[in-house]
């Protein structure tokens, strides 16, 4: 990677931002699907499915969505660190 060339640096910044926005869109789609999708909009349909003593829609609304949120943030942090390392724009 050529760190001396300012044009390349601009390219890397643009590439970094593109990848970041793409990753954001994917993760926010999952964020929306588990909470507003499974927990609100389609809760009745999912409630006909049972997992153990839980109705599935209810489980997503009160447990599943929260676990997914935690995982999403750590996935984002890990992916971003990897992208930054690859493009050489990280702070680590």
């Amino acid at each position, binding site marked *: 990677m050529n760190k001396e060339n300012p044009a390349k640096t601009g390219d890397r910044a643009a590439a970094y931002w593109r990848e970041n926005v793409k990753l954001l869109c994917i993760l926010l789609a999952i964020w929306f699907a588990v909470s507003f999708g499974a927990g609100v909009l389609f809760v009745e349909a999912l409630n006909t499915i049972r997992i153990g*003593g839980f*109705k599935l829609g209810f*489980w997503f609304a009160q*447990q599943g969505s929260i676990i997914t949120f935690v995982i*999403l943030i750590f996935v984002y942090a890990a992916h971003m*660190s990897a992208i930054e390392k690859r493009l050489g*724009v990280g*702070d680590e």
Partner: protein
Amino acid sequence: MDAQTLTFIFVGLSFALYIGIAIWSRAGSTSEFYVAGGHVHPIANGMATAADWMSAASFISMAGIIAFAGYDGSVYLMGWTGGYVLLALLLAPYLRKFGQFTVPDFIGERYYSKAARVVAVICLIVVSFTYIAGQMRGVGVVFSRFLDMPIQWGVVTGMGVVFFYAVLGGMKGITYTQVAQYCVLIFAYLVPAIFISMLMTGNPIPQLGLGADAVGTSVPVLEKLDAALVDLGFAAFTDGTKSKIDVFAITLALMVGTAGLPHVIVRFFTVPKVSDARKSAGYALAFIAILYMTAPAVGAFARLNFIESVHEKSYAEAPGWVKGWEGIGLIAWLDKNGDGVIQYGPGAPFEGRPDYAEGVGAHGERRLNNAPTANENEIHVDRDIMVLANPEIAQLPGWVIALVAAGGVAAALSTAAGLLLVISTAISHDLLKRTFRPQITEKTELRAARGAAAAAILVAGYLGINPPGFVAQVVALAFGLAAASLFPAILMGIFFKRINREGAVAGMVAGLVFTLAYIIWFKSPWFGAVDSAEQWLFGISPEGIGVIGMTLNFAVAVAVSCFTAPTPAGVRAMVDDIRMPSSVKAEA
């Protein structure tokens, strides 16, 4: 030793710990006072954020709300956790890179305008004061319940402790105190939850117990609760009663509002690096999730236990905790059919809040002045007791009760301290240093910050002792306003360079005014508007209206920006810079 002595000891020890930490971590500079010098480890910051975030309402009230609202309570569970995803992905890393002290700092510089900064300060102060009154009240309630102290003295004691460590230690003192407070509150929450889960399902992990069979049967505990509630005429626990659009709007408003709350955002200014801000948000949410995933289990167990303990039981044989809480005025029984037996069902048992008369009735219950209602329900129960009564319901020893009291106080104090800090910072840094008196030295600014914190504590204490009924009803205000004003301005500041000063200010003002007006219209007694679904705009309640305010903010900001001068080149370069974790220029 009795529970009360133990409670004094536990709460006293926890106070000594907080004050000790404050002395050890005294702030010496404005940077330490505002953002703890930017040296907080991401895990420590995660814990501090969790304690900052989880208030007396989360600790004391949430499980009770879910106990009585069932599925409808999901709006709080998802709403108050999902916002961290927005925060971690859309705001925290860039604001950390920006690297100043406050939220108005960012808005003021990004929109190159003192007006934008002052509008942001106004939003911040309205949001934070709405929130803090409830925290001081929470401290008072815990003191009065567990230490038999009048609420006012509880509030004054709480003020004294917060005063000491917030004024002395600033953000540095608050951060390390909050780490200790998180440990106290989570331990205090989990111990009774584990015991009550064992009692109801035989499974020690509450989150799994919620999906397990009720003890001694092969019926899942949620199914048993659904059946018991439907039998009594309530909606099933796992079904909702709110309209779908309202559930959607409230959840979204709470999520966006969470991401826009200044006292939460500012916590991410305290970690050393951009990558730490992302990780720290993950840790924060993981620490929060421990409590938030336990709360629905506690709520469901407590509701089932409550029904089994009181319905069709004679008052004389009711468990001791029923009489204990009746003594404090959080339970009331009106024997409408005169059979000496408690009947529980939907609807209020009598008109208004319990108004106790002198003396006792035929069965030893406290007499009431209230007029009975037509339904068959005879018992009034305040939802806040569900967590506080858990140790007694599960017949746990005195030290657990003492622990819960210390936990409740920790939850209330940690949030109050975080809020006080952002208020004082906004006044000393944004209003004085950056707007009206730029010539003051750092020493003067630090003194002003301490003075502002002290003044804010006095106002908060006054609001805690004399809660204005109107403010108490509108916690929604804090979230709605944050969602409609601060969040869109910050988000667009990072992701859309085209949004300029004129657009941002117009957008914030539009979102703020609309949301404030809608909430005041329905929630205040001044206009006589009926707060019901038929009257609401698009069927969205005042709790969820922040979503419309936010949409309005985005729309106005984009429209105004299109017709006014483009963002200056210097500001565009600043946006490019905050988007990158490392400084590209320095590297090239």
